[in-house]
């Protein structure tokens, strides 16, 4: 099979992307795959993929004070540089920055496997803590589902008002 992009070389990389629910598939040669930022797809190096997506990592968040994860102290630049996420909380702190990468690696950001302490695949709603709601809010915003996001935002407000009483 020839590369979809250049039509010259043999396609060696199959890419399946899901963007706004639409599946697109491409077969690319290694040169074209690298140009599109899929070069390191198979070993999934976060550092390399992020740098291919954002260009100069140092430029991410330039001009603003670097946000640090409250639990482990990592910045997004730390994560991008090492390819390692600092702690579980980083996924909340840097959710919107990580999201494009996660989608590219997995094609989706919806876990469908085991939920701890329940039978596999059971749809058990997670507890509505402010933390969980905020993560959900981030997800909805990054997916541009603003109406649903507004509902969640109101829930967080209510929870926080309760907490302040």
């Amino acid at each position: 099979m020839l590369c979809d992009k250049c039509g010259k070389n043999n396609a060696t990389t199959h890419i399946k992307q899901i963007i706004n629910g639409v599946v697109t598939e491409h077969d690319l040669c290694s040169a074209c795959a690298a140009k599109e930022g899929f070069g390191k797809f198979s070993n999934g190096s976060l550092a390399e993929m992020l740098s291919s997506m954002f260009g100069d990592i140092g430029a991410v968040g330039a001009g603003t004070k670097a946000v640090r994860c409250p639990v482990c102290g990592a910045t997004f630049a730390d994560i991008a540089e090492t390819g390692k996420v600092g702690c579980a909380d980083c996924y909340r702190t840097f959710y919107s920055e990580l999201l494009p990468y996660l989608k590219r690696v997995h094609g989706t950001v919806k876990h469908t496997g085991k939920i701890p302490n329940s039978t596999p695949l059971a749809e058990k709603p997670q507890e509505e803590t402010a933390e969980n709601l905020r993560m959900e809010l981030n997800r909805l915003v990054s997916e541009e589902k603003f109406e649903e996001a507004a509902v969640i935002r109101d829930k967080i407000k209510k929870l926080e008002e309760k907490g302040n009483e």
Partner: protein
Amino acid sequence: MSSWYAEKSPQDDIVVSTRIRLARNLSGIPFPARMTAEQRKDLNLKVKKAITESNTPFAKSLNYIDMSDVPQTEVMAMVERHIISPEFAGSNAERAIILSADESISIMIGEEDHIRIQVILGGFQLEKAYEIAEALDNLLYNSLNFAFDRNLGFLTECPTNLGTGLRASVMLHLPVTESSGEISRIADSVGKIGFTVRGMYGEGSKPIASMYQVSNQITLGISEKNALDNLKIITEQLIDKERGSREGLNRVKLEDTCFRALGILQNCRVLSSEEMMNLLSRIKLGISMGIIKTEAMPIKLLIEGQPYMLMKKYGQLEPEERDIYRANRMREALA
């Protein structure tokens, strides 16, 4: 009770081993790369307690081992037996493992993730291996606070493991499929459904002894059951293909190849590890085709002939000395 490579196992004419790995982390503490020595020691003890104080048979059957108490030769020999990863062996940090007597269960603490549950069994035993891993997962979850998110699943240090944190793999012996030049085509087609094919010793390693490891690559948006079912189907197809191709071989030529390998192993005086592996691969083929009759188990010999396994048995050896001990061991086993 013996190790995965030392037992007669289901479909082991083609499937050498089955491995399940689950990546789990605790919330509220940094992932291993950012942990302090204190946090590591604390984590080791927490996981140890979760097992030993559980009211389950695991409390008795599993042993906690502080890796700093294990001699370097044995650490490397554990890698050769596929009990721990090379990364884990190479780290100087405070690491520990929890191991069963037959070494089928190993829980690495403080590898890339806080907890890596591994179950390795001989032959083709996906369901059984997953069942054991899941029982351990549930047990640990009862007393440890696993990091989990509704959308991202189990949270892991490397985002490529998010979701189920499950890596299921089978090691296949595919000499005839390999010689027909079809491995790369197979690798391409299983790649399209989120599986990878690589050589015996993992990423980047060149295939040796016609052994190939097939494992799932995608962990998010696919359930454990789906991943296991897909791997099962792929494996069954590869088994059928290899068996089918074996039937079509020219019998005399096959006998020649197998008996030549046997001849070398029965008579050699110096034997490199690579040559040993490739020759044992042919012995294995010869046994499963009813050509070679022997009580010897080629995969067991292959593991026992690895450099650190030899030194574990015979003491510190220079590489040239190892080649001699290895040759002696093979002659003895295949006499």
